[in-house]
């Protein structure tokens, strides 16, 4: 009964006003010829989601980009299936010509739906004004949406996470049991004591800039971790430290860290809340504020540790212009060249995250660095394997065109010709 109703609907050719694509057929016309309908329409639960969506696929109408070339777009119609027949047909979305897939993201899990794809064509009417002609496909079978318990396309990520985290945990355990671990020298972190000592000798301030992002950014956390070490050394050397920040939560956290560092250094009386202060959340307002402070106070040392965007060079060049010793660290690849050009030392990417382990020499933290290195070795090996396979692919295919090789299905390479 249901299939019969929808089949009747699917053969209807509708003439509707432009923009009224979901309306019910009102007039059957003979001329000009309508486009052929989309075929092979299928509906299935959208994979790898939390439910609430159905994916509709179809084979494009023969007139979509070919034949009469008159398919302008597709409407996707949906009806709820029930034992007594289909419910009302609603338009749930549209796709431009050339597309063969649509995801209906507004379904209820467990409800049976049926879909129809309607090919639309704009044709002139006998009166001359353009009208939309719609041709419906055969209806799909019943489809339900449901949530998945595992994102299959992330299986490779899960395997990599298990390997890397396993390696990190293994080396942490090794380090805890007293095994000596070698960590290469990081010049930027070795220079912290020297930079703080210089400020003390010159009787000038140290400015510590923990980036422009909030506490939900892991680079900010890494920057604050290094702040603890810098503050402790500054307290021991009796240097003057200032931490202008651009986020309220960062201000509160930095205060706790600096306070604790001064306490650990045995100089709690030297700490006061005004050492850490808020300037503004605004990116360039913050840069202007720091630049003003730098030009007026002429600090001897500047630390830039955290996430930075376009303000990185504005800050670092201003510091450079007053001859301050500058140590920067960020994991923003686009800003690294600016810091390298303008600062004395730069912690590049991963070195920023390694800083806490490097500075504290805590075995457990050092162990995590070794695990990280193993992860790098695995990726390096995978890259080498990829290079070898691509090279063999190039030889066997007789082309060095990487674009062609990139599109080449590696599965085909192993097929017996």
């Amino acid at each position, binding site marked *: 009964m249901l299939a019969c109703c929808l089949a009747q609907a699917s053969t209807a050719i509708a003439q509707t006003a432009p923009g009224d694509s979901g309306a019910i057929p009102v007039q059957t016309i003979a001329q000009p010829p309508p486009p052929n309908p989309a075929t092979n329409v299928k509906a299935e639960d959208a994979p790898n989601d939390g439910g609430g969506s159905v994916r509709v696929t179809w084979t494009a109408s023969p007139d979509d980009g070919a034949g009469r070339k008159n398919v302008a777009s597709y409407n996707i119609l949906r009806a709820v299936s029930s034992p007594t027949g289909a419910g009302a047909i609603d338009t749930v979305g549209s796709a431009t010509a050339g597309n063969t897939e649509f995801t209906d993201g507004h379904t209820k899990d467990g409800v049976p739906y049926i879909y129809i794809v309607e090919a639309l064509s704009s044709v002139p009417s006998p009166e001359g004004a353009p009208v939309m002609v719609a041709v419906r496909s055969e209806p799909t079978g019943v489809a339900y949406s449901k*949530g998945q318990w595992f994102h299959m396309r992330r299986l490779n990520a*899960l395997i990599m996470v298990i390997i890397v985290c396993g390696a990190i945990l293994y080396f942490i355990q090794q380090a805890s049991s007293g095994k000596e671990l070698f960590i290469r020298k990081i010049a930027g972190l070795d220079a912290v004591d020297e930079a703080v000592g210089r400020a003390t000798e010159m009787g000038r301030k140290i400015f510590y800039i923990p980036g422009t992002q909030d506490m939900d950014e892991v680079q900010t956390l890494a920057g604050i971790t290094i702040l603890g070490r810098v503050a402790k050394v500054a307290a021991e050397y009796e240097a003057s430290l200032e931490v202008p920040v651009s986020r309220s939560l960062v201000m509160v956290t930095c205060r706790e860290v600096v306070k604790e560092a001064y306490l650990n250094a045995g100089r709690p009386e030297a700490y006061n809340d005004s050492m850490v202060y808020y300037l503004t959340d605004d990116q360039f307002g913050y840069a202007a504020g720091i630049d003003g402070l730098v030009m007026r106070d002429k600090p001897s040392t500047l630390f830039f540790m955290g996430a930075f965007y376009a303000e990185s*060079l504005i800050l670092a060049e201003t510091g450079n212009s007053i001859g301050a010793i500058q140590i920067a660290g960020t994991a923003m690849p686009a800003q690294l060249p600016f810091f390298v050009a303008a600062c004395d030392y730069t912690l590049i990417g991963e070195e920023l995250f390694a800083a806490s382990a490097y500075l504290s020499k805590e075995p457990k933290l050092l162990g995590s660095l070794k695990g990280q290195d193993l992860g790098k070795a695995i990726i390096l090996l995978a890259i080498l394997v990829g290079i070898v396979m691509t090279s063999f692919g190039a030889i066997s295919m007789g082309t060095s065109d990487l674009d062609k090789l990139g599109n080449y299905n590696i599965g085909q390479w192993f097929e017996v010709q």
Partner: protein
Amino acid sequence: MRREIPTAIAFFVGIICIIQFFIPHRPFGTLVDVFSDWFGIVAAFAIWLGALNLLKVSLERSFSKKKTHDRWYGLVVAASFFLIFIIGMFMSGGDQFQVPGSRFDYLYVNIYTPLSSTMFALLAFFVASASYRAFRARSWEATLLLIAAFFVMLGRAPIGDQLTGFMPEGYRLSEVANWIMTYPQVAGQRAIMIGIALGVASASLRLILGLERSYLGGE
């Protein structure tokens, strides 16, 4: 308990964030959005902490006995703070303060935006001075950088192809520049990105497991 409770919260939230990446099913798939909303709410309330701190520091500088330039800057900040606050809250039509034509919008468009653009524009001059320093051939790395930059900059300008128009296809400056940007540059950048990704994973694991607690103060 001052450290244990935040560490437990970090562990719980961190584990949930990892799980939801692999399990899209409810409730895991939606929990991260909930946590993100909570963070937004906490951060919104915390703005007051920052704003009041800014006002306090500025007023302290303004009325400080030290006769420095800072006192005038402090005064300007405090006056601007009150001006934008009063106009935004009481003289711009209540919750319609952002509507074009309101007094708040007038200040935003005519004062804030030009000031912000001016700071951004300074970047052009800083890029020039930083490039000059970076490209001085003091070491072989800097010389390499200088040569690469020479080819890329010339290759990206029309004059590059005019100068090398006689060369066979594939060897003209624009093509050399594209090759440098597509292969050596991308390879270097990807190496840094891989290091960063592993660094983030390692740092996150340390935070989730509570091995790294210095952000809570001390240790």
